[in-house]
C-alpha cells in the first residue's frame, strides 16, 4: 500500500492509495461543492448538475457516455451531499485509461437545453420518490429547523418548486463558479498505475482554467425546538432529533463517533436495549453528521404513533443519563471493537478506500492509513467522552416528527412541550 500525490499546474490535485495486488481499481473526481454552496435562487442546482454531468459533453452524447461507461464494465455512479459532489467508477485495472479519459471528459458537461428539460423531470420524480418514502422528509425538515439561516439548512435535492424554477443558465453559472480544478481532487484507490494516471489526467484536465472557489464557513448557532408535520396516512411516526457535535476538522470527532455507537448503534447500544429490543420502537439509532465548521449527533426514532410520547421520553431520559454519567469502560471497548473491525473489513474493497481517502483529502488535505484511523479510535478514553458531552450537551436538541400525530403535545407530552417552546423562544 503506497500513498502517492501530485498537483497539476492548474491546481488539480491527484491523490492515490495504490494497492498493486488488488483485483480492481476505483477512481473518483471529488468536487468540493454541494448544497451549502447554493443560495435560495439556485437551490438544488448541485444535485441537478451532478445528473447533467452524465448527459454528455462537446464530443459525446448522453447515450455515448452511458454506453462507454458500460463498455468498460464499470460500476459507476455519483452522489451529492451538503459539501461534496463525487463522480466515481470502479473497474478492472486494464480499463484505467478509458475510465480516466471518460470521467475527465464528463466533468466538462455540455448542459444541452433539451437534456436539461428531460432531466429536470427525473429530478422531480426523485423528489416525489422521497416524499413517499419513510421518513417522509423528516431528515431534511430537521436540518432546516436546526440550521435556520445557516447554509447547511439547505436540502440536497432542493424542492419541487426550486428545481422547477432552475434555468440552464443558472446551472452553467454555478458550474463555472464551483468546478475549478483548484476545487477538485482526482482520487484513486486499488490497483492503480499512478504515473499513467497523472500523465493522462494532465492531458485530459491540464487545460481546465483555474480560479478560486471559496466557501463560506462559520459555526451554526445552537438551536432547540420541536416541529410536527402531520401525515395522516402514515402507519408509523418518524422522528429525527439532532444535537450539535464535532465538525469534520475537529479532533474529537473520533470520540463523537464512539459515543454515537455506544448510544445508538443499530444493535447492542443503549437505544437498542431501551427502545428496540423490548419492541417499543421499530428503530432508534444515533449517527454523526460531520461538516466543515459544524457537526451533529442525529437520532432517528420510529415507532407507533400512540407510543411516540413514551418513546421520546425514554430517549430523553437516556440522553440525560448519558450527559450526566458518561459511558462505561466496557461500553467504550465494545464500541471500539465494532468500529475498528468495520473500518478494517471495509478497507478490503478499493471502492471503499476511494471514499475514505477522497473524503479525508477533501476535508482535511491529509492521508490516513487504515491503521492511523483505528489508532485514533483506540486512543479515545472515557474522559474524552466526558469532555465531549460537556462541550455538546445532548439536552439541547432540535426535533422534527412526521406521521399521524398532529401537534407537539402529542409527540413530546405536555410538560416537555412547554420546556422546548421556552427554549426556542429564548433563542429569538
Amino acid at each position, binding site marked *: 500500500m503506497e500513498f502517492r500525490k501530485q498537483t497539476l499546474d492548474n491546481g488539480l490535485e491527484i491523490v492515490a492509495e495504490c494497492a498493486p*495486488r488488488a483485483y480492481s481499481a476505483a477512481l473518483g473526481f471529488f468536487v468540493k461543492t454541494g448544497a451549502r454552496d447554493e443560495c435560495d435562487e439556485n437551490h438544488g442546482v448541485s444535485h441537478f448538475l451532478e445528473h447533467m454531468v452524465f448527459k454528455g459533453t462537446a464530443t459525446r452524447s448522453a447515450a455515448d457516455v452511458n454506453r462507454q461507461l458500460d463498455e468498460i464494465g464499470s460500476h459507476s455512479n455519483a452522489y451529492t451531499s451538503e459539501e461534496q459532489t463525487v463522480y466515481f467508477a470502479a473497474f478492472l485495472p486494464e480499463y484505467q485509461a478509458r475510465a480516466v479519459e471518460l470521467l475527465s471528459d464528463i466533468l466538462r458537461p455540455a448542459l444541452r437545453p433539451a437534456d436539461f428539460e428531460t432531466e429536470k423531470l427525473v429530478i422531480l*420524480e426523485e423528489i416525489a420518490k422521497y416524499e*413517499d418514502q*419513510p421518513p417522509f422528509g423528516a431528515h431534511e425538515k430537521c436540518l432546516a429547523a436546526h440550521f435556520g439561516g445557516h447554509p447547511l439548512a439547505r436540502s440536497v435535492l432542493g424542492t419541487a418548486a426550486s428545481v422547477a424554477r432552475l434555468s440552464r443558465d443558472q446551472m452553467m453559472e454555478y458550474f463555472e463558479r464551483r468546478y475549478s480544478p483548484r476545487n477538485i481532487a482526482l482520487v484513486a484507490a486499488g490497483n492503480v498505475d499512478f504515473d499513467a494516471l497523472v500523465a493522462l489526467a494532465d492531458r485530459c484536465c491540464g487545460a481546465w482554467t483555474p480560479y478560486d472557489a471559496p466557501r463560506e464557513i462559520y459555526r451554526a448557532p445552537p438551536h432547540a425546538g420541536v416541529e410536527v408535520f402531520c401525515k395522516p*396516512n402514515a402507519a408509523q411516526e418518524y422522528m429525527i432529533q439532532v444535537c450539535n457535535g464535532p465538525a469534520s476538522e475537529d479532533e474529537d470527532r473520533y470520540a463523537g463517533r464512539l459515543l454515537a455507537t455506544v448510544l445508538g448503534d443499530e444493535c447492542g447500544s443503549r437505544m437498542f436495549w431501551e427502545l428496540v429490543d423490548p419492541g417499543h420502537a421499530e428503530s432508534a439509532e444515533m449517527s454523526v453528521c460531520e461538516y466543515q465548521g459544524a457537526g451533529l449527533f442525529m437520532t432517528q426514532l420510529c415507532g407507533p404513533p400512540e407510543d411516540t410520547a413514551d418513546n421520546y421520553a425514554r430517549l430523553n431520559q437516556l440522553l440525560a443519563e448519558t450527559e450526566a454519567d458518561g459511558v462505561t469502560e466496557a461500553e467504550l471497548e465494545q464500541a471500539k471493537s465494532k468500529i475498528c473491525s468495520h473500518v478494517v473489513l471495509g478497507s*478490503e474493497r478499493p471502492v471503499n478506500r476511494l471514499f475514505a481517502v477522497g473524503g479525508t483529502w477533501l476535508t482535511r488535505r491529509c492521508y490516513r492509513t487504515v491503521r492511523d484511523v483505528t489508532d485514533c479510535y483506540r486512543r479515545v478514553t472515557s474522559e474524552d467522552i466526558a469532555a465531549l458531552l460537556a462541550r455538546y450537551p445532548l439536552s439541547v436538541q432540535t426535533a422534527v416528527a412526521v406521521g399521524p400525530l398532529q401537534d407537539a403535545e402529542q409527540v413530546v407530552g405536555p410538560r416537555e412541550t412547554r420546556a422546548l417552546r421556552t427554549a426556542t423562544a429564548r433563542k429569538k
Partner: protein
Amino acid sequence: MGQAIYTEQFDNGLVLVAEAMDWLESAAFCLLTPAGCNRDPDDRPGLANLTRELAERGCGPRDSRQFISALELLGADTSAAVLVAHTSFGGTMPAESLFPTLAIYADVVRRAHLPADQLDDARLVCLQEIRSLDDDLSQRAFLELRRLLYGEPQGRSASGTADGIEAADIDDVRRCFEATYRPDGAILSVAGKFTWPALRDHVAALYADWAPRPPRELIDTPEAERILHLPHDSTQTHIAIGYPSIPYRHPDYYEARAAIGVLSDGMSSRLFTEVRENRGLCYAVQAHCHSLRDRGSVLCYAGTTNDRAQETLDVVLAELRRLAAGIAVDELERLKAGLKSSLIMQQESSAARSSALAADWYHLGRIQTVDQVRSVIDNLSCARINAYLASHPPRDFRIVTVGEQPLETSRGIS
C-alpha cells in the same frame, strides 16, 4: 489462479462449503437452516420470523446481552433474516474471530433458549416490522407481486401477519425451532482467510452430532389473481410487474439472465434509456431475475408520479415485449463486460463469496468457480439468447400497483 474450494457433507445432512481467500484479512459465513416462512403453519404466518427473533435472545451459556456483546467484541458484523425456504444467519469478521463466531452460531441454531419471558417483546418487534411495511410502498408492491407469482406457500411474506404473530405462543415457537432448525437441508458456507483442515474439524466438532428430523412435504396452491391495485394517497404510483421465468438451476439460466441484463443492467440498458433517459418518466426503474429452487420469475419495478404512471406502465410493458424480438451484439458485449467485472470484484469480498457459495449449493448442489462462470459468460451468444427469448417470450404478466388510481392493464395480459 485456481480457487481453493472445499466441501464436506456430514452424515446428518449438513453441508459445509468453503473457499479460502488468503489475500484477505477477513472471513465471512452464511448458515442457512431450512426454517423458511414456507414452513409457517397456515394459521401462524410469521412464526419463523418470531422464532428467529427469539433464537437471538440467548443461546448456550449466554443471555441476550451476552450474546450480542460477545459478537461485538469479536468484531463480527452479523445479521439474520427469514427467507422463503430458509432462515439465514451470517456475518463478516476479522479472520481470527471466525471460529469463536461459528461456535456462537452453533449455540443459536442448536441451543437457543427461546425465553418465554421475552416472547411479548419479540412479538412486539415482529409487529413493528409488519407495521413498517405499510409505509414502504414499493416493498408492499413487491410482496404482493411475489404472492401473485408464486402462490402459497412460496409467495409468502416472511413477516407474516399481525394475527399470526399475535396467535403464536411459546410452544409454537419451540415446535417451530425443533422442526426446522435442523442439519438436513442446512448449508454452512465460509469464505475468507482460514485453513481447511482446521475449519472442517472445528465445524465437525460443533455440528456433526446435530440430529436430523423427519422431512415434511410442502403443498403448492397457485394464485389465480393476476392484477392487483392497492389504493394509497401517495405522490407516486408504485408499479411492480412480474412474469414466470426459469430458475437458477435451469441449463438456460444464463441466457435468461443475460436478456434481463440487457433490459436493466447498467446505464445503457433498455429500461434506463427508454424510461428514464429518453422520457424522464422515473428516477427508479429496474428489472431482475428472481429464483426459488424449482421456479423463477422476472420482477420489474418503476415508481413515477401519478399522472405519468399509465405511460410508464405502457413503456415498461412495451420494452418487456420487445425483448422477445431479441438483443443485439453490442448490447451483449457491454453486458459481458459488466458481468465479468462483478464476478472478479466478488473476489475482494469474503461476504459476497460466502453468499454465492451458499446459493450455489442450495440451487445447484455444487459450487461454480469464478473461472467456470467466466467461461459461461464468454460463451454467451446472441444466437442462443435470442433463441431462448423466442421460445420464452415475456408474457403472463402479474401487475401490482400502489397509488391513487388503478391503471389500464389489459394490454399487459396476453
